[in-house]
């Protein structure tokens, strides 16, 4: 149902004509009635109607009928048309990075490029290793989804992943392999795969036309134009992401078990790095303080306890609580953190611009109506000092003995 207000001229005509047999039905009832003592009672609040701009209107011409019934204006969720490939004549395989278990914008661009190459005949097959948290594979443009889970693929196991990809190569015979040319894994995996398959990949590709692909060469001073390669490592923004269709995301599986390869590189786990030493622009987890922070000593202790890089709003920097190079926002650093914990920051537009690229924003604030709360994925309304202290305690409990008091 559309939101356009429509008039009903017939009903208006009947309402104006007091002699019309249907006149009573189109009149608002309940505005006046006979009381128990025989006195006419009137309800002045029921008179009139709410106009289109929200103010009350009283129309004494007798034509009053429109706008009284509140229209239900919940926007129906737009159902995008479903793109189905019943029997794909070929496959385009995409191996997304899934940083933090979710599709990145780079991955979405790549899926868009895959659809450009697949057209209506082919299917886009996405290969996902390990756990993921993504729920929108269908709108991102995945026709078939191959999920390889298990202990083999947890942690850093590029050789095992290449083994699985060669099994996919044997089973699906994909026309193209598309991987993101990123430092977060795709660039490495794609090159390992290309070396294994004996294919010459097109790297840092930023434009794909029907026959050719163009990629950056050397140190970025030259472009290399070549015929479309089978293995394509594409740069970000190589194509428009899929936005106008829904896809099946049907789960497929491998016919044969992937051979277990003896890992020659053993992963001993992540190393604790000094969060203060990581540049703000590329820190993964930022604890940022603003005007609402009173106890800066507690704030610094929280940052140490959480292992977060410290940031600050402009006010906190101007007041001298934090160094200028820690300022987040339009005049400071534009951060790209995956998780941004804002304590006592109300969210000036310049600050919100600076955190535009952040994935998850958590706000701790006293004012429930501030702009940061509107931006945040999780907001806690309350005193920042008490919450930070509780957070330090919770972290200490976590460090001491796992999740024994997890609520």
């Amino acid at each position, binding site marked *: 149902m559309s939101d356009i207000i429509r008039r009903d001229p017939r009903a208006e005509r009947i309402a104006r004509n007091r002699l019309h047999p249907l006149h009573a039905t189109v009149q608002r009832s309940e505005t006046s009635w006979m009381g128990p003592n025989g006195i006419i009672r009137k309800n002045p609040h029921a008179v009139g109607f709410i106009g289109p701009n929200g103010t009350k209107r009283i129309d004494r011409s007798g034509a009053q009928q429109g706008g009284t019934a509140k229209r239900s204006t919940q926007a129906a969720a737009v159902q995008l048309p479903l793109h189905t490939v019943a029997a794909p004549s070929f496959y385009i395989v995409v191996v997304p990075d899934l940083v933090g278990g979710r599709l990145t914008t780079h991955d979405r661009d790549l899926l868009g490029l895959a659809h450009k190459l697949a057209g209506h005949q082919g299917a886009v097959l996405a290969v996902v290793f390990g756990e993921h948290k993504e729920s929108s594979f269908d709108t991102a443009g995945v026709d078939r989804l191959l999920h390889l889970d298990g202990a083999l693929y947890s942690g*850093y196991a590029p050789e095992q992943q290449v083994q699985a990809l060669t099994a996919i190569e044997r089973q699906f015979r994909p026309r193209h392999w598309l991987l993101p040319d990123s430092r977060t894994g795709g660039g490495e995996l794609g090159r390992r795969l290309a070396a294994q398959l004996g294919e010459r990949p097109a790297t840092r590709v930023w434009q794909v036309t029907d026959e050719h692909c163009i990629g950056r060469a050397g140190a970025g001073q030259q*472009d290399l134009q070549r015929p479309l390669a089978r293995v394509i490592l594409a740069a970000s923004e190589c194509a428009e992401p899929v936005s*106008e269709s829904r896809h099946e995301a049907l789960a497929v599986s491998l016919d044969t078990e992937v051979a277990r390869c003896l890992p*020659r*590189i053993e*992963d001993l786990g992540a190393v604790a790095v000094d969060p203060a030493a990581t540049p703000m622009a590329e820190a993964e987890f930022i604890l940022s303080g603003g005007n609402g922070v009173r106890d800066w000593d507690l704030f610094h202790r929280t940052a140490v306890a959480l292992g977060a890089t410290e940031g600050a709003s402009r006010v906190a920097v101007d007041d001298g609580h934090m160094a200028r190079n820690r300022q987040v926002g339009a005049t400071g650093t534009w951060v790209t953190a995956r998780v941004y914990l804002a304590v006592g920051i109300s969210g000036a537009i310049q600050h919100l611009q600076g955190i535009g690229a952040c994935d998850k*924003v958590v706000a701790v604030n006293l004012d429930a109506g501030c702009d940061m709360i509107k931006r945040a*994925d999780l907001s*806690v309304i309350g005193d920042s000092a008490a919450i930070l202290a509780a957070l330090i305690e919770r972290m200490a409990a976590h460090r001491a003995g796992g999740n024994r008091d997890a609520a």
Partner: protein
Amino acid sequence: MQPKPLNVLCLVSIGAHPTSGRARRAEQDARAVELGLRLAGEQVQVLHAGNAEEEALRAYLGMGLSELSVLQQPDGADALPVLFDYLKDSGAQLVLTGSQAETGEGSGMLPYLLAEQLGWPLVVGLAEVEKVENGVAQVLQALPRGQRRRLQVRLPFLASVDNAAPVARQSAFGPARRGTLWTDEVHVLDDDLLSNASFQPARPRPKRLKVIKAKTGAERMKAATAKAAGGGGQVLKDVSAQEGAEAIFKLLLEEGVIR
């Protein structure tokens, strides 16, 4: 007893200055040489496949090397087979390269192909070699966002370094003049890349336009004036500090930022 130093070999190429395009030592290869010098001192071997006449090669000698071997090849020749032949019986335990060349195709495939042909493991983005014991090396790998990962790998292995490796020392003019370039004539194989591909000056990439797919004027107005809104965020009101902290902690744990 002084432990026997590691037999380290660095593969170097000729770079191009990002602005002027003038030949220079390649940034990442110089970092690889720096890492090699820290690991093996003067004993580090440095190898280049290409033109021995190039003056920029001497910049590597200026980092404190006494000699540099060159496998003499014309431009556009395939460096992979000659490097493979050389490495096969060089006795190197650790081969260091940059991530990608600054001239030519610069696909960054060379370390991968060499590792594949030699059958050695490859460590991508080596930041530091912590220790080498009983033929097993414990190394730190550089990850995006300044993170590090500890890996254990058996010798011999190949490693590529990127910008997370230690910054290369300055090149001094005197040692650069005094160092010797040993030239080997090798069999030349042409690279078939340029038979069907062509180089062009880099075009600036088109800026992505913000496409607004609004059907009505009201929607367009809304899209133009909308504030950055996540919408649908969870708001916890009137909860104790402990409950609030617990909720935050749960989210941080889910996102995997707490270790």
